[in-house]
């Protein structure tokens, strides 16, 4: 079950990344200039970036390319492996390609000729779509790796999202790894009993997942009891923000201006025009 293993690996990676960020925040390593910012600041900037990326027209490939600068600056600044981020993009690429595959066949008008090779509008629109997909996934990945799910929950709470909703997201994240590991154990036990069989046989669909569900419900009961013992009164308290609010506001404003500039001004075209 590579899917299960991959999911567990991804969560571990995110946890390690968060701990690294927190460590740097305490001055253990690196500059850590950004970790003292409120998670809401990251959330808002990411959302603004996503909005700007998808707002590019389907033929504005060069304009869209300039948005890569944000990803590079953030990835390098926070020491997040961009190669890992790229690994996450392939399922989206597959989906986006499926939707955009018809474009080169429908829009055949040539928009750019290079020698004998002609690039049609359809190809440009398909490439734009694919780039949009890659950029959006990478931006979300950088957000999670930099802020962590707990940080995102804090950000959502700051946006005055209902506490019940944030608590559910928080708990899903907390218990995801536990249940994934439990599922992995069950699958392994099944595979050992039924060697050479692909997937779970339909005769045991119900009992297999049903047992996992019953175990989950029992676990939920234990979780609730332990929450009560720790003084749960309807709200789950996660990480608390102790950094500077002024710096967070400045971070949002600076990135908003920079991103807007990248959206409006064709930076890559201008630089290209300066070249001899």
């Amino acid at each position, binding site marked *: 079950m590579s899917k299960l293993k991959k999911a567990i690996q991804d969560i571990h990676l995110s946890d390690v990344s968060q701990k690294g960020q927190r460590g740097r925040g305490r001055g253990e390593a690196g500059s850590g200039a950004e970790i003292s910012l409120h998670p809401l600041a990251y959330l808002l900037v990411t959302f603004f970036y996503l909005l700007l990326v998808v707002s590019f027209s389907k033929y504005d490939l060069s304009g869209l390319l300039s948005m890569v600068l944000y990803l590079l600056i953030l990835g390098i600044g926070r020491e997040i492996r961009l190669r890992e981020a790229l690994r996450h993009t392939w399922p989206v690429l597959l989906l986006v390609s499926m939707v955009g595959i018809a474009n080169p066949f429908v829009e055949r008008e040539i928009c750019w000729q290079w020698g004998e090779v002609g690039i049609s509008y359809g190809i440009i629109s398909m490439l734009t779509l694919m780039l949009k997909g890659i950029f959006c996934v990478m931006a979300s990945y950088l957000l*999670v790796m930099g802020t962590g799910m707990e940080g995102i929950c804090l950000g959502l709470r700051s946006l005055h999202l209902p506490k019940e909703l944030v608590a559910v997201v928080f708990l899903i994240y*907390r218990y995801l790894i536990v*249940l994934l590991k439990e*599922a992995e154990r069950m699958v392994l036990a099944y595979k050992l009993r039924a060697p050479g069989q692909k997937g779970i*046989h339909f005769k045991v*669909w*119900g009992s297999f*997942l049903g047992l996992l569900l019953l175990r989950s419900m029992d676990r939920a009961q234990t979780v609730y009891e332990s929450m009560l013992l720790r003084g749960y009164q309807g709200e789950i308290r996660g990480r608390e923000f102790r950094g500077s609010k002024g710096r967070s506001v400045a971070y949002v404003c600076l990135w908003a201006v920079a991103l807007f500039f990248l959206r409006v001004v064709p930076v890559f075209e201008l630089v290209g025009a300066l070249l001899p």
Partner: protein
Amino acid sequence: MHMADALVAPAVAGTMYVCSGAAMGYSIKKVRLANEPKKIPVMGVMGAFVFASQMINFTIPGTGSSGHLCGGMMLSAILGPEAGFLTMFGVLLVQCLLFADGGLLALGCNVWNMAFYGCFLGAMVLWKLFMKKGMTRKKIIGASVAGCVLTLQLGAFSVALETLASGVTELPFGVFVAAMQPIHLAIGLVEGLITAAVLVFIYEARPELLWGSENFLAEEKREGRMSYKGTVGVLLAAAIVIGGLVSLAASSKPDGLEWSMERIAKTAELEAEGRAYEAAGKVQETTALLPDYGWKNSSSATGTSFSGILGGSLVIGLCVFACYLLRFFRGREKKE
């Protein structure tokens, strides 16, 4: 069916955020009204369960491919539509952030396409409709399969509409829909069967976990316990049988108290002396309809039988009256 950010235009994303937000607001209101703090951890753990279970591949016989269960329908069948919807939102948010399954900007679309149809239409319309007159295995299978197929079809159609409105594909709408719907019909069928298998297992193992089962379980209990009229009828019949027929076979030998009195005082009935005793004895003689369980001045079997029936009825009547009296006073106490 998770839509990526690249597939939606900002206007479409915003519109869908508003629509999903409205459904979320309604769900939050309902969950708060229910006031069940215990439900929040259950929702969280169930969300994690759906996530984990979707990572397991279930072999589809004869095809070589695999499928997974339908999250929305499953959650609603256990948590109810509102709590299920909120849990699905959590699952979709974690999916898009951690596993790049869907996008942050397209979250509104994904919540609508998967959670809204799955939870509200699947549970509020189909599940309720199927379970209207009780819960059975067949009904659970029917509701799960119909729910998954219908909600997935609607979700796939919405994906096509949203993509078309965003203007990202040159595919004609008809072609896009024709490509989306049949594949999701097959997926819906498989997901429905897996969901049905799990829900049937839960129904057999712990039916109280299923949404709406409290009504049918209570009904089942009531049926098991017998109705009020039935109870009174049985008691009356028992009184007639015991009082009228079994009393004929009543022993002529003394009962426990009479036996011990005979041993101590050498007589079963103590003679009381005094005016008060004499007066009370006279009153009893005049009013006693059936002295010593028989007609006055008669020792026939019918007399004994009739006295048994009448006595039994009187006792039952007194019991019922006492119960009503107790209920009346309890009601008054509650009101106060």
